């Protein structure tokens, strides 16, 4: 009822009726109000007139009796609160909280009514004297007289904690009542809530969970324990949402996390028969997922899991890779690696949320143990070879891509990629020359992947091999077009012209071709050199094949598919019936180790013994006699004998390849050193080693000792020099 004033053509005058300022006035007015407050607390307000009370309070304040009004309010309210407090204290057992709740809501209602009546004082007197407003005053008085009364305070806390404890042990409690009481504490201020409830609550909860977790962990296995922990955690979150302050949620969850998880982390992970390693081995996705989401909540939780997983993968991988049984068959070896990788990939995807840190741990573990076996590059190449020869026959294109991609993943883990390159070239050459690859597209697809991974340099020679095959086809067409007429009665010749740089170096062998063939070969040579000047051709007799139509003494006709060397040997028997080893050696001039192998495959292999040998032993002696086996039979019309298959290398072959790899590395190291020194001009020894290693890392792991030797060699050849002032520095010589 305070009007807005603008000094214009009217004035608001004070009340016309008399307001007597007599000394008793204040007392009388206060008495009316005091009586009203009593009535309100006694649920008797219906007889009162709001307007009258409001007006009286207004007048008191107006006539400067605000202080009396205020202090009167305080003492009257206090009186009533003390009465309420007594009745709450008197409540027995379970009705304690009910009584408290009821009195609280009574007080709130009364407080609001009182505040409405005393609104004027609230708005004018209180701000100017900086006293507590009515509503807040009411809450503070409640707090001081009821909640903090010596009989009620401890009893309230204990009752609340007891109820929570009972709920934790499975009893159902009155959540609505709890909510009201807790809300009351919150309304009284966050410090009341925290001091009178939250802090003790957290402490009691910590003790509870500490004890419970100790009990659980003694008698449960890891998976069950994690289940229980998760349930307790969810329970606490639910509890907060139902009747606690939401701000308490992070506090109570961190208590549970600490007591149930953080304190027992290592014990859980290492638990016998049910710990992390067992879960990994048994693919327990659900348990692992649970462990991940629980451990994520505590500091170092995930790193604990990760470390354990890493060491397990490293150990089991090392075992796999160094086990002589498993590393006998390359295809099985790589299959096992792929399987292992797939397994852990799945686990990380389904249970560990595709966590990048875990993916990295997996990759680094694989990198570690794959390189423990020096034959890994060779085996991976053999695996691919097997797949491209026959393993992927009939498989759909998308699935082929999937398998090749997986192989690429393993390839990336290799440290010695140049070793892989060497073997791959060898195997690819054999595949191409024997025409044994099932899908040209698959081959090319893999080359593309390698190119993406390692750059153009890596695959340029491989691509050169494919080009040579194509070009050779064109060359053959040209040859027969030009000379076809003369060659009608000659055997059909198919020549692959290989560019020396692209193909794996083979030592060319001596071999005397049968007369019919050498003439034909010469014809081809002259044709080719006629169209390509400045080139040199040399026949690689150890890499060729031949198809022979053979008629045996028993009348059987077969078509034999043999190697070139084998063909030379067999053709000898067109003219004679039997020959000794020495005769054959003289006639063909094939080197003895190759010749022995060749004869073994012709005479000693069951089902393919087109020749007979005397004596019938497995080994070839100088004086053994060979003759055609007229009793030879086979179920098939076309018999394949001793094709050149990519074998796992024998020991001497292995050493030889390794030596070649080492030789090839030397110029690469030197090139890297020169590149670095040219840019940096002057560099200290250790820095050079570090830079060179880094540059060569995509191809192989450089040996510091070897790098040092290369530096010395470059110094000798005046590419570098030692710095005069400091012996550890090297300088680039332009």
């Amino acid at each position, binding site marked *: 009822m305070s009007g807005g004033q603008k000094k214009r*053509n*009217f004035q608001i005058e004070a009340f016309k009726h008399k307001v007597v300022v007599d000394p008793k006035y204040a007392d009388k007015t206060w008495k009316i109000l005091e009586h009203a407050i009593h009535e309100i607390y006694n649920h008797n307000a219906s007889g009162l007139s709001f307007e009258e009370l409001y007006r009286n309070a207004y007048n008191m304040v107006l006539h400067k009796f605000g202080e009396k009004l205020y202090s009167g309010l305080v003492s009257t309210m206090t009186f009533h609160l003390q009465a309420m407090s007594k009745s709450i204290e008197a409540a027995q057992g379970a009705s304690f909280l009910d009584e408290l709740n009821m009195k609280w809501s009574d007080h709130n209602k009364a407080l609001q009514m009182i505040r409405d009546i005393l609104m004027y004082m609230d708005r004018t007197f209180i701000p100017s004297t900086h006293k507590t407003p009515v509503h807040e005053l009411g809450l503070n008085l409640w707090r001081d007289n009821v909640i903090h009364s010596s009989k009620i305070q401890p009893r309230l806390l204990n009752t609340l904690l007891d109820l929570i404890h009972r709920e934790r042990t499975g009893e159902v409690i009155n959540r609505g009542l709890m909510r009201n009481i807790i809300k009351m504490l919150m309304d009284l201020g966050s410090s009341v809530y925290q001091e009178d409830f939250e802090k003790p609550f957290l402490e009691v909860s910590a003790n509870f969970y500490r004890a419970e977790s100790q009990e659980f962990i003694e008698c449960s296995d890891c998976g069950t324990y994690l289940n229980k922990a998760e349930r307790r955690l969810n329970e606490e979150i639910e509890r907060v949402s139902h009747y606690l302050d939401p701000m308490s949620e992070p506090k109570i969850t961190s208590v549970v996390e600490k007591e149930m998880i953080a304190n027992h982390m290592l014990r859980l992970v290492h638990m016998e028969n049910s710990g992390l390693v067992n879960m990994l081995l048994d693919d327990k996705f659900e348990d692992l997922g649970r462990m991940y989401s629980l451990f994520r909540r505590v500091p170092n939780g995930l790193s604990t899991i990760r470390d354990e997983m890493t060491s397990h993968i490293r150990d089991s991988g090392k075992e796999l890779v160094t086990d002589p049984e498993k590393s006998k068959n390359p295809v099985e070896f790589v299959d096992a690696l792929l399987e292992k990788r797939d397994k852990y990939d799945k686990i990380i995807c389904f249970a560990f949320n595709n966590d990048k840190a875990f993916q990295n741990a997996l990759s680094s573990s694989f990198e570690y143990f794959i390189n423990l076996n020096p034959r890994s590059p060779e085996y991976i190449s053999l695996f691919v070879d097997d797949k491209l020869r026959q393993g992927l026959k009939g498989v759909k294109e998308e699935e082929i891509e999937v398998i090749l991609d997986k192989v690429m993943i393993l390839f990336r883990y290799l440290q010695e990629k140049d070793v892989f390159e060497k073997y791959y070239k060898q195997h690819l050459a054999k595949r191409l020359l024997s025409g044994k690859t099932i899908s040209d597209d698959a081959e090319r697809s893999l080359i593309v992947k390698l190119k993406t991974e390692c750059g153009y340099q890596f695959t340029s020679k491989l691509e050169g091999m494919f080009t040579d095959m194509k070009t050779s086809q064109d060359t053959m067409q040209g040859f027969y077009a030009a000379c076809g007429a003369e060659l009608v009665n000659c055997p059909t010749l198919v020549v692959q012209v290989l560019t020396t740089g692209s193909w794996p170096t083979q030592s060319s062998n001596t071999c005397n071709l049968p007369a019919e063939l050498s003439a034909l070969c010469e014809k081809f040579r002259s044709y080719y050199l006629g169209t390509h000047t400045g080139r040199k051709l040399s026949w690689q007799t150890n890499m060729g094949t031949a198809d022979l139509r053979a008629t045996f003494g028993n009348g059987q006709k077969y078509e034999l598919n043999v190697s070139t060397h084998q063909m030379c040997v067999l053709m000898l028997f067109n003219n004679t019936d039997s020959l000794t080893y020495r005769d054959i050696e003289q006639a063909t001039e094939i080197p003895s180790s190759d010749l022995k192998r060749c004869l073994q495959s012709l005479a000693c292999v069951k089902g393919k013994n087109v020749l007979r040998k005397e004596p019938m032993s497995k080994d070839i002696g100088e004086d053994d006699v060979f003759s055609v086996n007229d009793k030879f039979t086979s179920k098939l019309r076309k018999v394949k004998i001793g094709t050149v298959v990519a074998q796992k290398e024998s020991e001497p072959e292995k050493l030889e390849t390794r030596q070649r790899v080492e030789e090839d590395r030397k110029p690469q190291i030197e090139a890297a050193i020169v590149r670095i020194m040219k840019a940096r001009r002057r560099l200290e020894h250790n820095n050079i080693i570090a830079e060179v290693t880094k540059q060569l890392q995509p191809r192989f792991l450089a040996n510091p000792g070897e790098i040092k030797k290369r530096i010395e060699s470059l110094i000798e050849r005046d590419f570098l020099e030692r710095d005069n002032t400091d012996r550890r520095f090297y300088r680039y010589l332009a």
Partner: protein
Amino acid sequence: MKKEDTVKLISAEGFEFVIDKKAAMVSQTIRNMLTSPGSFAETEHGEVTFPEINTTILEKICQYFYWSLQYARLFSEAIGKFGIGR
């Protein structure tokens, strides 16, 4: 006007002004009076007596209530002047 939506304001001389509750609620005090949780006499009967306010003043107050409702949302410049001197 429905009975439930109205409230009766009675002046010192006994004049009864029946106005919408909404209009009366413009006054914070009357609003508290009517929405107070306790069962004061006023809320029981839906009428408020002002023994110290005379009729002309109370009439003007009621007019103010309605004016205020009407122009509540407009910006202050656009508000028509409430002419007391009329």
